[in-house]
């Protein structure tokens, strides 16, 4: 047991995990801890982890909900491999998480919940807290949370059951004590959320938070406290942002930059629903939102609005992408701008609806009939969703094509600090509308981009018909063999030519060496962290993280050629590897995991090391 101290121990970063029943409010306290750490000036990365069932039977392993975050004074790129401190609200939460807690880690448990019934629900034959070996293995802090909360709220007019519900904030208050977090952002959260509607609830949660925080001072066992100083970052205005929030803002800003009205059409699906909900709240920015009857209708509405001149967007996840395939083909052959967001989750079928995976890359590339290549943009972190949404819109409008925007559950639900950009600094997106002054030839193309011009219903004299049947340049239906071949080539060349608009690939590390790690999407933090560790250890390893999955950057093949080996870690069974092998005839080494969890830095470091030996 560490000796109690009154002072803080300075540490560079820490990983905290809250785990409890899905009704215990673990996501809420996790988010509050994140806000507080952001307010304290730390860099942060978060990993919410919740079950697919809204309320699985209370106390069971299936119902355990967790939230992990890493915060630090250095750059934080992942939510951390393993927690330094685990808060377990019940036996099931302990059982589901304890294997991840290293020996000596801080373990805060709510002992009230360790009764016979809850232990049985968690499949514990004996209470682990009564096992001497277990007790010695961790820095155990036993809190009588239910009773402590009730006592703290003795004056509150709330009903006893309502008082007990505040225990998550009591636990949070205690963790704030341990890590010296400011209470202000959380108190403000109570104020904003409940003060008007439910003032007693706001007051009770504030009392519970403060009581938990004060407990640290009076307890004998928990005196070791940690200090994580501000991270050294670029000056500017920061906020915390999740991937789905960043996508919402990116789309709204892109519509402004393209001078088009934004129409969003979606059908609720995990983990994409927050985009539908987020945009539905932005009507004052002129955003029109349609909650369609199904996934097919959602993209149909978007295509109709695109034909009528809007910037049209739909977002979904893998199962929804399956349903949209036929319509995506229509958007491709009619050459209409459209953004299709796929917030990936574990598949196939319903798969793992609340767990992350990046296994829809080949679907994005190939799941249309006919030769139908489409541009694909993938976000690598929560804030990167903002930039990628704008990039997707730039490509869609400049090249008159549907664009697939890939995010994943880890990126979408995770949060990090974001240096808020100045909208004025972002480039405009140029439309290419047909003019009423000249003859309109529907598929006459710009010589540079191969994009057609768009005529909008309501424009005088530009009446025209588009549709799913193959057309000749003038827009008439054509079954001519040479025409179909030419149009197929033109659509392919148009998409391939988008690569000319990218900057050169960014290489983390030297431009040549022993090992090149190529990644894409949400694995960025873990991959780049592992690569940095190995570089610090003197290994000749570098990293390219791809934003554009189609077309691939023109210089990628050449970069790959400058390394002895190429390894591609992915949360799938080797989809990007498949593409790189077939396109570049390079024997890339695939490393794929599909456990519904992000990579751990240590795991990747070990893997890369095997190929550096």
């Amino acid at each position, binding site marked *: 047991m560490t000796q109690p101290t009154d002072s803080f121990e300075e540490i560079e970063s820490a990983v905290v995990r809250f785990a409890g029943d899905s009704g215990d409010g673990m996501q809420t306290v996790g988010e509050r801890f994140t806000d507080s750490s952001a307010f304290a000036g730390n860099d942060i990365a978060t990993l919410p982890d919740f079950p697919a069932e809204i309320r699985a039977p209370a106390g069971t392993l299936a119902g355990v909900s967790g939230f992990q975050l890493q915060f630090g004074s250095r750059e934080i790129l992942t939510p951390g491999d393993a927690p330094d401190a685990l808060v377990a609200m019940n036996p099931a939460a302990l059982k589901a998480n304890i294997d991840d807690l290293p020996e000596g880690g801080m373990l805060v448990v709510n002992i009230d919940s360790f009764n016979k019934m809850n232990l049985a629900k968690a499949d514990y034959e004996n209470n682990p807290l009564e096992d001497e070996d277990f007790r010695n293995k961790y820095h155990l802090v036993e809190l009588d949370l239910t009773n402590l909360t009730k006592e703290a709220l003795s004056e509150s007019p709330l009903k006893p059951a309502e008082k007990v519900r505040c225990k998550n904030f009591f636990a949070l208050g205690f963790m704030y004590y341990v890590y010296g977090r400011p209470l202000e952002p959380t108190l403000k959260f109570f104020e904003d959320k409940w003060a008007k509607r439910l003032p007693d609830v706001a007051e009770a949660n504030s009392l519970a938070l403060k009581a938990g925080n004060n407990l640290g001072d009076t307890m004998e066992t928990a005196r070791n406290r940690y200090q994580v100083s501000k991270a050294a970052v670029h000056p500017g205005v*920061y906020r915390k942002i999740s991937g789905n929030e960043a996508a919402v803002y990116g789309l709204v800003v892109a519509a402004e930059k393209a001078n088009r009205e934004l129409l969003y059409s979606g059908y609720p699906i995990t983990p994409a629903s927050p985009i539908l909900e987020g945009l539905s709240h932005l009507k004052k920015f002129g955003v*029109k939102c349609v909650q369609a009857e199904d996934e097919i209708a959602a993209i149909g*509405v978007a295509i109709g609005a695109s034909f009528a*001149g809007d910037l049209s967007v739909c977002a979904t996840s893998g199962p929804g992408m399956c349903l949209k395939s036929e319509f995506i083909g*229509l958007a491709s052959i009619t050459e209409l701008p459209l953004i299709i967001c796929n917030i990936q989750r574990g598949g196939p079928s319903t798969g793992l609806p609340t767990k992350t995976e990046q296994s829809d890359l080949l679907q994005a590339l190939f799941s249309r009939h006919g030769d139908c290549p489409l541009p694909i943009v993938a976000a690598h972190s929560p804030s990167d969703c903002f930039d990628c949404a704008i990039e997707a819109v730039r490509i869609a409008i400049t090249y008159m094509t549907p664009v697939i925007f890939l995010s994943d559950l880890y990126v979408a639900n995770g949060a990090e600090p974001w240096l808020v*950009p100045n909208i004025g600094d972002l480039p405009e997106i140029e439309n290419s509308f047909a003019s009423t002054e000249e003859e309109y030839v529907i598929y006459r193309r710009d010589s540079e981009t191969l994009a057609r011009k768009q005529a909008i219903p*309501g424009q005088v004299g530009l009446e025209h018909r588009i549709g799913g049947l193959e057309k000749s340049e003038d827009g008439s239906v054509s079954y001519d063999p040479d025409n179909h071949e030419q149009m197929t080539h033109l659509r392919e060349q148009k998409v391939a030519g988008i690569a000319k608009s990218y900057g050169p690939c960014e290489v983390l590390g030297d431009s040549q060496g022993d090992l090149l790690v190529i990644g894409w999407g949400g694995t960025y933090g873990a991959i780049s962290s592992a690569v940095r560790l190995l570089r610090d250890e003197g290994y000749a390893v570098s990293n390219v993280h791809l934003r554009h999955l189609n077309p691939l950057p023109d210089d990628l093949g050449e970069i790959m050629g400058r390394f002895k080996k190429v390894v591609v870690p992915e949360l799938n069974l080797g989809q990007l590897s498949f593409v790189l092998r077939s396109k570049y005839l390079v024997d890339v080494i695939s490393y794929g995991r599909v456990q519904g969890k992000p990579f751990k830095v240590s795991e990747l470091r070990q893997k890369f090391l095997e190929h550096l030996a």
Partner: protein
Amino acid sequence: MSTTTTEENVLTKKDFVTPNDVRWCPGCGDYTILNAVQRTLPELGIPKENFVVVSGIGCSSRFPYYMNTYGFHTIHGRAPTVATGIKVANPDLSVWMVTGDGDGLSIGGNHLLHLLRRNLDITVLLFNNRIYGLTKGQYSPTSEVGKKTKSTPLGSVDHPVNPLVFALGSEATFVARTLDTDMKHMVETFKAAEAHKGTSFVEVFQNCVIFNDKTFESVTSREFKGDQLLVLKEGEPLIFGKEMDKGIKLNGLDPEIVSLGDGVSEADLLVHQPANPNSAYATILAQMTHPAFPTPIGVLRQLEGRETYDEALCKQVEDAQSQGEGNLQGLLTGKNSWVVEG
């Protein structure tokens, strides 16, 4: 981009004809429907550039290619969704959706339901020929039980959907039926449909001369139609027959054919009331089917006053914007930002 209108020009049918060859089979009912639509549009007082014709897949869905307006030939069954997107993006457009019995009621049944209940201000023409024509003659969801086709050699076994009952069940605010053989009635019906604010659903009995010829003979042939056709007119009693000597009377909840005279007068008959907010009346009409009853044509239901989806959606946006336009930079910064000093 210019969106000036051409109101000063007087439009004629010719303005809506495309140079494309029309490629339906000779004798197809689609030709007369096309003709009727091209005659209707110039009379509506709407600038030509504001018309958009949207379709799905099937013989009927080739329609946009033959209309010199903005047009979108989409995918099978999904035209209601694309039409919805167009109308929501720009409610000033006059959106016409053309579909068939397979496109609209089989593969696209779900979307049609939602279009109708949402009451977008769109006109839907459903060409019902009770057969799959473009795929060369399989039975359709409106084919009668026992229909022998290539895919049902022993006869179809499934109960057909009644398009009008479907529309009424979806609480459509305008439900009508017309015939491809009656130019005047088509034009009249299409005009009424366009004038209605909300989704107007028009079933057009359309003859497929190749795969299902004479399926509507009872109401289209000179021989039978006198006794089999009931032409609905608002405020008038339901009278039919070559001699106009028969009528429809309500017996409890059931319609009944009665002969005028012998103690039955016009006053005993049902009087056509399309504006009746209770859809039971229109459903009784819709369920009057050959051969037990004469087939009603005309406007079965027309209910004005229900807000359209496009109108309501745009109003929410306008209301939100009328309280001051959003500050985009402020949105990005949010309420819980912090400043890192340089």
